[in-house]
């Protein structure tokens, strides 16, 4: 059987005319006819509950359709057909690691393969220091040094090094947050397998590839072999249709989903995002969507590649790639549908990403600070979104507002790109006028607390609205800190009032 990379266009499960009418969950295997019959006329925006697990085909003789993720696994494991639950050895296209997990992974690699062992492919490893960079912590700085020594020894092609901590711009190779850098530097490609020693590696699924986080030992294994034993996950499908309201961002969509299925709702599963809304999202917004898949326990997230993807990749990579798409007869564990036009800005209240609430219902929550940054909410468009709210308000923030661009490129965009409707002002100018802190050196920053001297780390028990991805106890530093996860719109709105605030206060 030929390679399973059938390039058929993504097929919505119901006729597009019926979009926006449904509020049901269906087993999508004999999908098309059944779902059309089940369409109900009432327009709702809620999602339907998950059906019980369906076992994969056991006959073996019948060739069943495969989901995107299954196809990527099939190609990577050189099999023509496989089903969820199978454990297969996959070939890894890209392995990413950073300053926290790189040194341990390197240690394991050398211990297992020998002090003089060479990595499986010096061009498929991308080493991105980003976590604990702008700190006086000696071990943190030593760890970047360990990466450097290793890259020199192995002649690693992609090492985004930093030496001058006092001036990030003096480091031509330095990028910043790994997941954003991977995308910006063209390492994310449809159909490929990307593994990273970081849970938010799933971000790259936005490019129609299989991307997931692994630990140091697994990474050590990949360093030596270029392969890993992985279990094929079943897929949950999320169909989002309708025009995205102008006060809503992808962060609201994923908070909606996590709130619906819980922090373990997608454990060991793939989350596939399709529908007209998804198709209308930019790459950065798709990245935000896939980024928090892990917060629902998800193994990976995928968005089918399309012209938006190809356009983004045009100037970033010349490596050929082959997108894959779910077959029409692919079997999904469950399907969730919602009409995006009915959704409202959300927050995840302390202390769980699934502790979903409407932003407007939290308007009495007084806050102490706002943090805009991280792979989830520190990309160029995230800052443009925040700037839009500050511009619409024209007022100053009422609480310290910390801005941490994810990468050097984002930082430059914040200082260079004009914000629409502002008469040529840049985000940086708007932020300054609004009284925000000066945009900081790009890195993961305080999203995960980090060393004590990390910029914007929460060292007191405060209430923070953040565009980051987790709000478990102690996440940003102090154990009693209260973190409200939100979109950049909601974060900016909250900064302006000093309370958790629905951005429609300023955007409508």
């Amino acid at each position, binding site marked *: 059987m030929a390679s399973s990379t059938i390039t058929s266009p993504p097929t919505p499960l119901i006729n597009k005319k019926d979009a926006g009418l449904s509020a049901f969950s269906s087993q999508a295997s004999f999908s098309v006819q059944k779902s059309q019959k089940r369409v109900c006329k009432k327009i709702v925006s809620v999602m339907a509950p998950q059906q019980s697990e369906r076992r994969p085909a056991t006959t073996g003789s019948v060739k069943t359709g495969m989901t995107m993720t299954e196809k990527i696994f099939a190609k990577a494991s050189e099999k023509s057909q496989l089903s969820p639950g199978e*454990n297969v050895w996959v070939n890894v296209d890209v392995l990413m690691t950073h300053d*926290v*997990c790189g*040194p*341990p992974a*390197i*240690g*394991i690699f*050398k*211990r*297992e393969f020998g*002090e003089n062992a060479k990595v499986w492919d010096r061009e498929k490893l991308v080493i991105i220091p980003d*976590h*604990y960079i702008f700190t006086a*912590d000696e*071990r*943190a*700085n*030593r*760890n*970047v*040094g*360990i990466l*450097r*020594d290793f890259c020199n020894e192995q002649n690693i092609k992609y090492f985004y090094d930093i030496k001058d901590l006092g001036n990030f711009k003096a480091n031509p190779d330095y990028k910043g947050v790994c997941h954003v850098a991977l995308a910006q530097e063209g390492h994310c490609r449809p159909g490929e397998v990307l593994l990273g*020693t*970081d*849970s938010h*590696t799933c971000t790259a699924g936005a490019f129609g590839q299989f991307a997931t*986080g*692994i*630990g*140091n*030992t*697994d990474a*050590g*294994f990949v360093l*030596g*072999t270029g392969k890993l*034993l992985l*279990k094929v996950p079943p897929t949950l499908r999320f169909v989002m249709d309708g025009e995205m309201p102008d006060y809503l961002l992808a962060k609201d969509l994923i908070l909606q989903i996590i709130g619906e299925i819980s*922090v*373990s709702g997608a*454990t*060991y599963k793939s989350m596939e995002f399709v529908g007209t809304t998804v198709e209308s999202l930019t790459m950065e917004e798709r990245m935000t969507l896939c980024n928090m898949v*892990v917060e629902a*326990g998800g193994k990976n997230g995928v968005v089918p590649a399309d012209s938006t993807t190809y356009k983004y990749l045009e100037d970033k990579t010349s490596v050929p790639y082959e997108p894959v798409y779910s077959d029409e007869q692919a079997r999904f564990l469950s399907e969730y549908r919602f009409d995006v036009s009915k959704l409202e800005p959300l927050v995840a209240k302390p202390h*769980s990403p699934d502790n979903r609430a409407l932003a407007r219902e939290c308007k009495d929550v007084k806050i102490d600070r706002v943090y805009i940054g991280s792979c989830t909410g520190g990309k160029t468009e995230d800052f443009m979104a925040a700037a839009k709210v500050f511009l619409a308000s024209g007022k100053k923030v009422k609480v310290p507002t910390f801005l941490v661009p994810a990468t050097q490129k984002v930082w430059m965009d914040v200082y260079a790109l004009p914000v629409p409707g502002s008469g040529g002002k840049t985000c940086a100018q708007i932020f300054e006028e609004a009284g925000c802190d000066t945009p900081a050196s790009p890195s993961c920053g305080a999203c*995960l*607390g*980090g*060393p*004590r001297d990390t910029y914007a780390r929460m060292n007191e028990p405060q209430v923070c609205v953040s565009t980051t991805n*987790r709000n*478990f*106890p*102690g996440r940003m*530093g102090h*154990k*009693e800190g209260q973190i409200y996860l939100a979109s950049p719109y909601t974060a900016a709105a909250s900064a302006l009032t000093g309370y958790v605030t629905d951005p429609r206060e300023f955007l409508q």
Partner: protein
Amino acid sequence: MAASASIIPSNATATAKFRATSTAATTPLSPPSVLKFPSISPNYPSTKPLISHSALPHFQHKPLSAVTPPNASSTPPPTATASTFHGVCYVVGDNLDTDQIIPAEYLTLVPSNPEEYKKLGSYALIGLPSSYQTRFVEPGQFKSNYSIVIGGDNFGCGSSREHAPVALGAAGVAAVVAESYARIFFRNSVATGEIYPLESEGRLCEECRTGDVVTIEVADNKLINHTTGKEYKLKPIGDAGPVIEAGGIFAYARKTGMIPA
């Protein structure tokens, strides 16, 4: 910035803590070589005051009867997978995320460096909120009195940091029994061999209290709580079994010929 500390240990510290004792299925096994007793005197139950209650379901302050060590004369069935864990348990709730197991500020420690590995153990579960009144590792100590952790749903969720199962292992934890696991944490536990990740049939986190003495019979899929006298069924290890039995992903890969021995 040259790396001043060696990160390569001279001998593997973190692998195969519970490697199977015998691969020869025909010979009866000697008493399991993988026993992780708590690092305290055998007189613990009678001399040391039981630790005060945690914020979890009410802890019964009960004097313990003499604890019977695993019967050394009963040989486990002649398979390659027998393991028994015996020790004092520490109970946590649902969604115990890896930031609580090992907060981010300690992640500068590189586990493949023996000194740093040891230090990591001292910080295990230091991220637990103050509602947990019993500390997992006493200040100034490197190991915990508790060798078994009992958890609820979605144990190990959040960050992929492998430092999490490693910190628990370094602190002396032999096994975790949770209702369910988050994916990456489970993988990391299996790959490193640091802790044995078992799943319970019910909510053991509501049945057991921190300080209970328990025995886990892996081959029989059973957990015995000596303090309450109750027994509980555990789920069989499943797909990860062969990897765990081999001693982690590297040992498994060598065994199956995926990488040279």
